[in-house]
């Protein structure tokens, strides 16, 4: 059996996930990054995407993440996410609505937000919708 390590996902609003797991795949800045126990210390930027977690019992869990930071150590891995949702917290309709809102804000160039921020908001919303739709099937 693969060795376990502690994995946590925290957002400014709550702790989304905190359990011992055997492997984690996360959307790092330069592509997906797999982490197992004993990984070399690493600080990484995350982009919007999904985290795939495997536990010791072989069960797989997924979390949609809107970007953030990862602190990987040999015994512990911590993700500081801007926002993160498990499949049961996501709803396709809501995700679609928030995507529409983000797109509209981009078209109208909502004042007070930079182009980058608006682009990032659309990317986050798209990611969330993709995730929600896939889970529904």
């Amino acid at each position, binding site marked *: 059996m693969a060795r376990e390590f502690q994995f946590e996902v*925290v*957002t*400014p*609003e*709550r*702790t989304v996930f905190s359990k011992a797991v055997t492997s984690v795949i996360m959307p*790092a*800045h*330069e592509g997906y*990054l797999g982490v197992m126990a004993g990984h*070399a*210390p*690493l*600080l*990484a*930027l995350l982009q919007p995407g999904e985290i795939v977690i495997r536990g010791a019992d072989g069960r797989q869990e997924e979390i949609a993440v809107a970007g953030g*930071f990862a*602190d990987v150590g040999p015994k512990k891995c*911590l993700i*500081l996410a*801007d*926002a993160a949702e498990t499949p049961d917290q996501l709803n396709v309709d809501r995700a679609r609505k928030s995507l529409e809102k983000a797109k509209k804000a981009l078209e109208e160039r909502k004042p*007070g*937000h930079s182009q980058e*921020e608006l682009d990032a908001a659309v990317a986050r919303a798209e990611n969330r919708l993709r995730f929600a739709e896939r889970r529904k099937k």
Partner: protein
Amino acid sequence: MAVGSIKSIRTKIRSVNNIKKITRAMEMVSAAKLRKVQERLMAVRPYASRISDFLTGLAGKVKNLDFPLFKTREQVKRIGIVFMMGEKGLCGSFNSNMLRFWNEFGKTHPQPKDVTAIGKKAADAVRKMGLTAADAYVNLKTDVSFGDIQSWTNKLMASFLEGKVDEVWVLYTEYVNAVTFRPRAVKFLPVQTEIKDKDEGGSGDYEFEPEPAKILDRLIPRYVQTAFHRLILESMSSEHAARMNAMHNATDNAKDLVSSLTLIYNKARQASITKELLDIVGGAEALKG
């Protein structure tokens, strides 16, 4: 005592009892809100403490720290102020203390100010002083979203970076415990950290993806937003706790008032009965004679 005054005492007792019910209900509501805000404060804590660990660890890695958000400006010509007060009144001296604190702060910091008001009372106070708030955020709910707070913080950071203001201060009420709150001013920008090129920090053999400076670019704004989030939650906690105490005291006072009114009422009732008895006895005596 006349019958009329007995009646008026009875009405008074009834109305004080009603007030008591209302203040007790408000106390309960504030207690529930306080608990909610406290839970959120607890939920922020792990994120906030980790992100500042990150920051200290990373900042040691970057050779010459050259981030505008950290830079202290030599001349402070204009300051930005975030003024946090409550949403509503009826919370003891919470709002008036803050107002007094504002005046004292103005004495030590005479520079012209850009004010951002948070809370309805703050917006009202700023208007009454004849100032115009650059921004006012009112009707804050206990579950004010981090997204909102992020966009407020971004505006503050933007006005600092564009040079509109040279410092940003936050005036808020610190929550010490359920009965003690203190108005406080903190220098919010430039970021105050004790990152003094210490390279030990345990992050000696870390790898980075991408390079530390790029991570810092994203991390610093997030750090500032988190700090701001905490201050808002703390101010909210203080408001709800202050209202809870004020309403608790009001309920107690109402109780005292009811018991002293009841005493007067009983005395008056007894007096009128005695008087009636005397009348009857007197009348009977007169008939006999």
